[in-house]
């Protein structure tokens, strides 16, 4: 029982970080109907940026996101403007998969040239610290990472619900034409939506670099998980992607604790296939699609 609860704690904490990455993915899908295969590469780019700021200037990874999120917001908006905006609407859904995959390859190439391909980790002073609560070990980094993700998700929620810009985004998600008629500049919203998605990747990347060792090729591993999360939750639903991320974290942690660890990722894919067998639209796909 102790092992199970310990695994549950670990799973929820890990799931929280993935929830942040996946919600960025979901916003990008929402505003543009684009499945962003470069989201993993953007997370890794964010991790490298925080790594550089930490090793060169000693800037704490949690503080470095104040620099990296605006930077990747710009990168994301730029990528959208350069490569996705020119695609014609009728074949955007399919072509965007290929275009964003090409962008992922390009980012991987730039990172490999800049940082070579050996594995890195961000070794902050508190990396090995942990708390003990009621007999359960909680790693400090994972707890901070989870809290940061929760705070950023809350912020995202406030921006979407309470600001004029957030309303414009939600309107675009629900009905792009009507939003445009009501004076929403859909091209700006699309670019900004992509930018926000990339900015969440930057924040998640700082945390990812603290938790795991990574190299330029790590984005393949990330993107497979992120895609499974958003499909499990239902494409286009932020709530769904958070639930999906938590399910993934918990399932993987439980299998790792109770069974052979090499199968922990695999088990989640099995859950995904089982859900798709019963509900092809994902957990929240039908009811929340387009509602954000």
């Amino acid at each position: 029982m102790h092992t199970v609860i310990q695994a549950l704690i670990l799973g929820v904490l890990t799931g929280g970080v993935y929830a942040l990455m996946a919600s960025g993915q979901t916003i990008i899908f929402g505003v543009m109907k684009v499945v962003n295969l470069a989201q993993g590469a953007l997370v890794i780019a964010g991790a490298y940026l925080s790594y550089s700021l930490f090793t060169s200037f000693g800037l704490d990874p949690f503080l470095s996101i104040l620099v990296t999120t605006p930077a990747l917001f710009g990168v994301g908006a730029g990528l959208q403007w350069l490569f996705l905006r020119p695609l014609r609407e009728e074949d955007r859904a399919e072509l965007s998969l290929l275009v964003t995959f090409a962008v992922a390859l390009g980012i991987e190439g730039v990172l490999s040239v800049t940082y070579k391909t050996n594995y890195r980790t961000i070794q902050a002073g508190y990396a090995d610290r942990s708390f003990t609560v009621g007999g359960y070990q909680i790693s400090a980094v994972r707890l901070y990472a989870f809290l940061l993700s929760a705070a950023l998700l809350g912020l995202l929620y406030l921006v979407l619900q309470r600001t004029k810009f957030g309303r414009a985004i939600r309107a675009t998600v629900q009905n792009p034409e009507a939003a445009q008629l009501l004076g929403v500049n859909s091209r700006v919203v699309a670019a900004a939506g992509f930018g926000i998605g990339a900015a969440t990747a930057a924040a998640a990347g700082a945390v990812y670099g603290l938790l795991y060792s990574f190299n330029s090729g790590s984005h393949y591993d990330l993107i497979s998980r992120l895609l499974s999360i958003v499909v499990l939750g239902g494409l286009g639903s932020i709530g769904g992607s958070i639930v999906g991320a938590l399910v993934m974290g918990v399932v993987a942690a439980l299998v790792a604790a109770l069974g052979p660890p090499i199968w922990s990722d695999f088990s989640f894919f099995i859950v995904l296939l089982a859900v798709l067998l019963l509900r092809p639209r994902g957990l929240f796909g039908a009811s929340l699609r387009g509602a954000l």
Partner: protein
Amino acid sequence: MSRAGVIRALLFFGLLTALPFAVTEHWIVNLGVFTLIYAGLASAWNLVGGLAGYPSLGHAAFFGAGAYAEAIYFQHREAGANGLMPFLVLPIVGAGVAVLGLAVGWIAMRTRSDVFAIVTITLLFVAQTLAFNLNSLTGGSQGIGMPAAPFDVDTYERPFYLVLVLLLVVSMGVTWAALHSGVGLSLQAVAADEERARGIGVHVTGAKLLAFAVSVGIAGMIGGVWAYYVSFIYPQFAVDPLVTIGMVLMAYLGGRGTLWGPVLGAFILVPAQQYLAYQYGATQLYLIAYAAVFLLIMLLLPRGILPSLGHLLRRRRAAAGRSPDEPAQDPADHAGAGTGTVAEEMAR
């Protein structure tokens, strides 16, 4: 088949078959082998991704399944029948992979378009994890070896090359048959509007599952030839996202849904890719160059070369006074007549 079509096919495959007898330089025939691998894969992918409009990103998993089936069977055996045995078992490998494809397609094809693409790419990562983790079967990251082929050193690549030409004939033959049969029409109806097609009584599920099974079966056979050719396979190369993306990109470049488009795409991109890898392979600049080529193709030729050319030709003809609506003798055979979808036919 129109007469021009027959002549074009005979000429193409005649020249292709003659090449390894006329040229024996290893690097050229080797390039030919890899070009044929991708031409076959792109053509097979086109059955599902082009004709039926289901953008599978998981085909490399079935390529890998075929490769592992060969390697696991032959790891402790001699390549009998003068080294031809691994080729002779290909139909069995193909049938096995096709059955696997039926099971996978039955689940995956409950989803459509972008979700289908995601589910299939997820399957690709599942397959890669399996290849890494099933140590006793696949050798894990240590890889698994095939027996050395007892072919003459001077013409070592030739048998592989010829078998791949044969598989390309099969793949394009199936595509041609699909374009000229009821099944093909059903697939095009699925691509255009699946719900309406189902509504008017098209056997949607049967048609798309058949296309998927045949398509991945061919990919599996090509994987088997590849495993024998490279003689030692590792999970990261046997089940490689870049293989998936390669075949998809080639089909898009040449023109998906057309008979010749995917093959044309492979004949342009594989040599270009090998050149880039040769020039910049030592550094990772290769990846950047590849991504740049990739993006340019998508932005400049979103419909592919053959459909764009066909469009241009029709416009020329219209300008020369002929009606653009005049149907060609045989739309699917006519070099790149549109993307060959029902939607396009109706729009014209």
